[in-house]
């Protein structure tokens, strides 16, 4: 070894840093969502509230492959992506509480989190309705000659929607820098995908639109990161869209008002999937690699617990929107 050569530890350092960041981000989502569930049960959060528990590796792995000014657009199960794109836990929790300090001023709610300055272009409530919006953001980026790409997250149920097919076709014809990231958690609410889809390997749909595609293990943040990085490069360098099918699993019910299991899936199945917990998986790898020990992990977790507790306190103590807000923001000047 010469004096100028870098030691293996040095080359591994940025990688390790990234893995630790991902672990921390997944834990943040997990603890945030657990607190959201508690707050929902206490009546602090109203309406529909779709939790991301079990799917954390998807948002965390994918967003790690993006630049800060890239666009992200999501369905209504978007708390995780919002947090990782840089909206503070305070602003997200306050939005769930419907408070004036929320990231959408309390007028969006759980399903409509926004922070345009951070490139987080929303949570959207109609299944598949935001898929063309994601392509449109990529259209604008290409039109303006910017190198921003757009990652559009949607569930597998959206694949049965017409807007999905219309958009993939146009994105391919127009070569838009967009990544269609399908989070296949296997159930559209209570309907197993194979019961309602003729083609159950979603990646296959890319063939119809002459589009690059990858099937990805969504319980592993690192594989999601690698696949998204490849797709982002394709979009940024060559302006080619990609369809990623990321297989994951939701550990909770469809929304807070739905059962965890019962008529549509068994308790055994949920337990079996929980054994593939993406956080346990990455934590285990980092322990195995000697990067962290249990004490370090506990310390990170404690820190995140405190951060999320603070977000709940912030949301709780924040003011309700001014009554005049009712008529604001209907039309722009």
């Amino acid at each position, binding site marked *: 070894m010469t004096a100028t050569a870098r030691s293996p530890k040095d080359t591994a350092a940025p990688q390790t840093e990234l893995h630790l960041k991902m672990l921390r981000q997944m834990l943040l989502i997990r603890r945030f969502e657990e607190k959201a569930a508690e707050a929902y049960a206490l009546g602090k959060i109203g309406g529909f509230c779709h939790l991301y528990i079990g799917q954390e590796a998807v948002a965390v792995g994918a967003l790690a492959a993006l630049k800060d000014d890239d666009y992200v657009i999501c369905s209504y199960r978007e708390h995780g992506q919002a947090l990782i794109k840089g909206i503070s836990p305070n602003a997200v929790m306050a939005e769930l509480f419907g408070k004036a300090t929320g990231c959408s001023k309390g007028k969006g709610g759980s399903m409509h989190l926004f922070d345009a300055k951070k490139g987080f272009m929303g949570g959207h409530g109609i299944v598949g309705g935001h898929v063309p919006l994601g392509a449109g953001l990529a259209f604008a980026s290409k039109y303006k000659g910017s190198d921003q790409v757009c990652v559009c997250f949607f569930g597998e149920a959206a694949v049965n929607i017409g807007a999905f097919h219309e958009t993939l076709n146009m994105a391919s014809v127009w070569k838009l820098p967009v990544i269609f990231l399908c989070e296949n958690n296997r159930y559209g609410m209570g309907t197993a995908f194979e019961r309602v889809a003729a083609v159950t390997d979603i990646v296959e749909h890319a063939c119809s639109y002459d589009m690059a595609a990858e099937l990805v293990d969504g319980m592993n943040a690192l594989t999601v990161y690698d696949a998204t990085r490849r797709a982002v490069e394709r979009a940024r360098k060559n302006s080619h869209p990609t369809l990623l099918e990321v297989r994951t699993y939701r550990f909770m019910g469809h929304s807070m008002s739905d059962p965890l299991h019962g008529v549509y899936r068994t308790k055994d199945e949920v337990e079996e999937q929980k054994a593939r917990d993406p956080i346990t998986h990455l934590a285990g790898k980092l322990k195995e690699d000697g990067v962290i020990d249990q004490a370090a992990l506990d310390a990170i977790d404690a820190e995140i617990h405190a951060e999320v507790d603070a977000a709940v306190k912030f949301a709780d103590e924040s003011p309700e929107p001014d009554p005049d807000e009712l008529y*604001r923001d209907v039309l722009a000047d």
Partner: protein
Amino acid sequence: MPTLTYRDALNQALREEMQRDPNVLLMGEEVGVYQGAYKVSRGLLEEFGPKRVVDTPIAELGFAGIGVGAAMGGLRPVVEFMTWNFALLALDQIVNSAAKMLYMSGGQIRIPIVFRGPSGAALQLGSQHSQAWESWIAHIPGLKVVAPATPADAKGLLKSAVRDNNPVIVLEGEMLYNLKGDVPDGEHIVPIGKAEIKREGSDVTLVCHSKTLTVAQKAADQLAEQNISAEVLDLRSLRPLDEAAILESIKKTNRAVVVEEGWPHAGIGAQVVDLIQRDAFDDLDAPVQRVTQADVPMPYNKFLERAAKASPEKVVAAARRVLYLE
């Protein structure tokens, strides 16, 4: 002042706005190579190229949504629907994405987009191609809706629509595209939300918009022969509605007939009548009458179709009723 067709007035507005602002683009079916299904976009592909004049597949929901996404990304798209009948497929994007984005994002994301195309019946196109869309679209907060009746208003309102920072619906008409009229050159802007008295009168107000302006004008001619002086008020904008102009005219004439292409149930006329009964009750000398399309899907047969549409004769009869002449 140059005389132009309604079609060429729209074309001029698009050309001028695309020359003025590089972020304005046109997308839709047949807008480029084919020069527009109704030739509204004639010559634009040649002048601005395929980047800014984008031919789309027949996928209204998809391209309307891509247009909204492009507006989220800072562009000012003009989305052409070959007709509003097909825009029914895009309603999710118009209502759930375009109209609500500003509000549900707490004021962060503006959607400066124009959705335009012909609305209402032409001749013998059958029920699925002969629908007036006004009341469906005007129902939605977060949208602006205009329905120009003349070439000058078509140019001026489309230019306003392109410059507006909100989603604006421009309802045109297949039967209007060949209509000729004086159109000012260059910077001619008609503000959204302003009605116009197209003919002064003192005995009855005929409230109309879009194609029914011609119907109302013919009715006014016939009424004049009966020594009845009808005022013709062209709404031009349906959301926001120029309530002051309506009330002002009723104050003068004390009687009104509201004419529209759409069906009667929950129509634009119902909205106008609601305003009049509430805010001009003391000025009224008779209940307001409405003339609409018959409450049926549009038939194909030309005699049945004619019977279904608003006509000058129906407007004259309604005007005579509010004047207690029959």
